């Protein structure tokens, strides 16, 4: 099996204006690797939503992206408040996002549902008060 390429991003909670930059960078890298546009789109959307959530709902964290010839694995780990009710959080339209950022288009409650929709596998491990780790796989 060919070796995987690993990309690591530290997601800072302090500067909201940097949110989304990591997924934008991954998109650029995947493009230069010649990954199919369809897979790039899926990864870009799923990771973007996860990254934004880490900034808005948690206190930032670490994203690792493993790129291998057959799949892309994204692991988004934060040390935020955790998700009390995953089923509710997964519902389209459910959101606890603050008002101040809604006019930028956030808080539609479509992030988690889209992460599920655009990936082939998604698991959520969450512990209240400790943090959340979301693992997503896109096959290529």
């Amino acid at each position, binding site marked *: 099996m060919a070796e995987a390429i690993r990309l690591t991003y530290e997601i800072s909670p302090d500067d*909201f*204006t*940097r*949110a*989304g*930059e990591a*997924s*934008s960078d991954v998109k*650029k890298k995947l*493009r230069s690797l010649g990954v199919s546009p369809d897979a790039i789109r899926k990864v*870009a*959307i799923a990771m*973007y939503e996860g990254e934004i959530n880490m900034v808005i709902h948690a206190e930032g964290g670490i994203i690792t992206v493993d790129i291998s010839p057959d799949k892309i694995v994204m692991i988004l780990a934060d040390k935020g408040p955790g998700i009390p009710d995953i089923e509710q959080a997964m519902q389209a339209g459910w959101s606890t996002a603050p*008002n*101040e*950022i*809604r*006019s*930028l*288009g956030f808080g539609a409650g479509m992030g988690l549902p889209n992460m599920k929709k655009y990936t082939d596998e998604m698991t959520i491990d969450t512990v209240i008060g400790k943090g959340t780790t979301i693992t997503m796989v896109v096959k290529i």
Partner: protein
Amino acid sequence: MDKFYHSVKLEPELCKGCINCIKRCPTQAIRVRNGKAQINSKFCIDCGECIRICPHHAKTASYDKLDTIRQYEYAVALPPPSLYSQFNNLDDVNIVLNALKLMGFDDVFEVSAAAEIVSEATRSYIKTHESSLPFISTACPSVVRLIRVRFPNLIPQLLPINPPVEVAACMAAERAMEATGLPREKIGVFFLSPCPSKVAYVKAPLGTEKSQVDHVLAIKEVYPQLLAYMKAVEDDAEEISESGKIGISWGRSGGEASGLFTDRYLAADGIENVIRVLEDLEDQKFANLEFVELNACNGGCIGGVLTVENPYVAEVKLKRLRKYMPVARSHMGDDAQGYVPWTTGVQFEPVFRLGDNMMESFARLEQVERLCKRLPGLDCGSCGAPTCKALAEDIVRGEASERDCIYYLRENLHKLSKEVSVLADDINDGIKGGREAFPILMDYIRRISNEMTSLDSRMNEQENDD
């Protein structure tokens, strides 16, 4: 440069004197005189409403032609976010940016990138000036011009930060000089404008002595060419975009405010709404606001009169475009710092004052009141002024006469003919002797015929134009 420089102007040969525009102008800057519209340059704020309403396309905006880029050794385009909203199914702004290069520009500098820097500067300005809240956006030049002539009390609330287009121009010029080693005058900085207001800004800026934008092109004019070049851009266009959600959002109403991360803001668009908000602000009707975003055009810059797309459709396109963009891509750095703050203040221009001093204004105001009572109060516009009150003000300023009112004229004719017939009766009854009465009678007839001629000539003016 004339501080009342304007981009909006009249094409006299197209104007029919139909008075549509005088009614729409939010500052009552237009009069129809001698059958043609005239714009009072002190009142006009270049909002473009008359361009929108004129059914004969007699109101136009002045701007530069694309081939002026040939006058420069190096030309930089400044595309605004409103430009990105003009295309169907666009999902990558890099296509537009690369097309601009194919069109002949050596470099592009996105206004939305500078906008993100302006947003950042605004956030910190608000934080450090909490005792002077709220601040009013200074990005729409028509709004600033309106405040300058009509809301002097609000001038201290103006956000003393250059609009994104100016910051972009400064940064673009510096980047070009560094890259090429050329002197500033060999570099042309071109803004692709959605509105005449920005054309006027560049010639007569507010908050800065001289704009670094050298020429302004109209979006609607470059649009067809740009569209063709966009088709020629390869699928994976070179990534040159330097802006994200915040910058792109500036193109529509509420976008500037959304980059401030506060919900204590108010955003109003459309010049009539803007005026209402400013009046309420002046009366201190709002509490607890940090920021007031005002755009003269409906929907914000995407509704500018030099764009091609319906503003509401454009808004949907802009939303779609920004959906998966990073929050921002440009951040304040040393390269921008010096270009952000205003370097001059905005002075109140009391153009609507009736007289040169308090006493004169007061006396004239009384005159206006008196005149208004005499005028019919129909605001019919036949005199060429938008309202009876506006005519009364024109009269006391010595720019019009009561006889411009056709109702006044008609009344006068009635009165004169009544007096004539009384006189005639008197002569007939032998109360007045024929000899003395004759010159009086002659005088009456002359006056009646004068009034008739003046009425006729007014009618003719209108007919000739039809």
